[in-house]
């Protein structure tokens, strides 16, 4: 429904045969130091088109640092991030970001619709077209009626959906989310988890979610990437084979879900000791 033009973009096939317009992302030997302190060392990972990857790890391990490197906001100290075969050196139009602190990333002087449309203005898209696209993306995240409200008039969960809509309006084929639901109540959080699954299956985008919450990681992910160590690197890749259609109650009581969760948890515990 959104972005009809994009249907013509060449698509990529991933292992499950999902036709996705997202380019593959490959991280090679990525290291990042702040001054003399190395936070990430020799990290390798890849994101196939249409995949949901969850990155888990203890607080302070370097998850935000990794995500900022993936987004092109921060150059790695060494190694590379490539998208569709090209090494990125700056933020790309294919990548949309939803920040950890949604309150701080929406502009309080713009109404919701303007906030969502603003990145399109930067691309020189006319007012009518960008507002129409913004409205479509607000519809997609279930906020059809919030366009004329200011962000601070919305609840936390609604603000986070606005941030997601903004990334979608931008044409993001790869969505990066940094602890997107960390500060929300449980019910809102579950709703937004399902929204992410739904967006992936409708829009065929790739999603990379950083989270503290292991249940959330296993519920969302096709693959959970466990980060640990100082400096951090990938200590485990857990393929979560729970299919495309997940349900908060059924999936989470599936014995395989419990098994995956225990595996991720024990991996984190093992490295912490």
């Amino acid at each position, binding site marked *: 429904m959104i972005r009809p033009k994009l249907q013509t973009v060449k698509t990529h096939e991933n292992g499950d045969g999902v036709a996705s317009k997202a380019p593959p992302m490959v991280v090679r030997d990525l290291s990042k130091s702040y001054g003399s302190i190395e936070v990430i060392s020799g990290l390798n990972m890849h994101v196939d088109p249409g995949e949901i990857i969850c990155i888990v790890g203890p607080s302070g391990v370097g998850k935000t640092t990794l995500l900022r490197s993936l*987004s092109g*906001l921060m150059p790695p100290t060494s190694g590379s991030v490539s998208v569709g075969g090209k090494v990125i050196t700056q*933020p790309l*139009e294919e*990548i*949309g*970001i939803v*920040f950890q*602190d949604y309150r*701080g*990333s929406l*502009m*309080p*002087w*713009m109404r919701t619709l303007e906030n969502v449309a*603003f*990145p399109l*203005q*930067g*691309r020189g898209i006319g007012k009518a077209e960008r507002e129409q696209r913004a409205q479509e993306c607000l519809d997609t995240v279930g906020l059809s009626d919030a366009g004329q409200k*200011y*962000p*601070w*008039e919305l609840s936390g969960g609604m603000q986070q959906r606005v941030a997601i809509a*903004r990334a979608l309006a*931008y044409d993001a084929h790869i969505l990066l989310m940094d602890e997107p639901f960390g500060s929300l109540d449980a019910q809102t959080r579950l709703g937004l988890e399902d929204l992410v699954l739904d967006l992936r299956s409708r829009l065929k985008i790739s999603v990379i979610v950083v989270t503290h919450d292991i249940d959330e990681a296993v519920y969302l992910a096709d693959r959970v990437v466990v980060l640990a160590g100082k400096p951090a690197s990938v200590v485990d890749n857990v393929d979560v084979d729970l299919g495309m259609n997940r349900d908060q109650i059924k999936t989470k009581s599936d014995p395989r879900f419990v098994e995956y969760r225990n595996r991720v948890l024990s991996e984190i515990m093992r490295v912490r000791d």
Partner: protein
Amino acid sequence: MTADSNRKRLWRASPGLSLIQAWWLPIICILAWWFLSAGSKSFYFPSLETILAVLWRDLTEGPLLSYMWISLANMAAGLVISIVLGVAFGLLIGEFGQLRDALMPMLNFLRSVPPAAIVPLVIVALGTDAAPKIFIIALTCFWPILLNTIDGVRGMTPQLRDTASAFKIPYSLYFRRVLLMAALPQIMAGIRIAVAVALVLMVIGEFFGASEGLGFYINENKQRFAMTETWAGTVLIGFLGYLLSAIFVKIEAFALSWYFQSENAND
């Protein structure tokens, strides 16, 4: 927060009450002045009644009204120049650390020169028409606006900067729609200071080498020992100051309505 908004609704519901709230002190002062000075025979302290009578006479029959417009026009020109330059340089200096490091020592030095001290110099350099008066107002008002704008930019949440770069917002748009707006509350605080300063400098600037304007009117009458006229000019300036700050509060409330409301929402 609900108690607060209830109180606000109450005030809005009764405009008479809020008028009294805003005006009681000036009204009491004016009444006290009026009655205490009534029938005064003092040469230096004429009664308020005679002051107002002279003020009215010079406004309607004398040159005072045209002087007032001349002075206000100079002040407006000086303020506009200082706002444009102060905000533009403030945004640039606030945003670019290297620019800040290069310029701040020099700016701090220049800022410490007291404006009144350069008035005679500027008149020598720029002559006695409007230019030096506008220059002095613009130069002095430039500082509070510049420094407040820099602070406003520095105080912007870093997520907004990240958001702008992640979504590749071009600089022109970023400066207008992100930086400027984020700094606007601070900028308005700077302009508020500038308006008060501009009024003072408007008067001082016309004490020297002027042949028209409110400062000229006061100074000339003082030299003729026409105390009532001197008082009338002073009262008029006091009134203008009050009016300007009232107008400014309205403009600020309009320009920053999103800010005041969001501050309330976050409490």
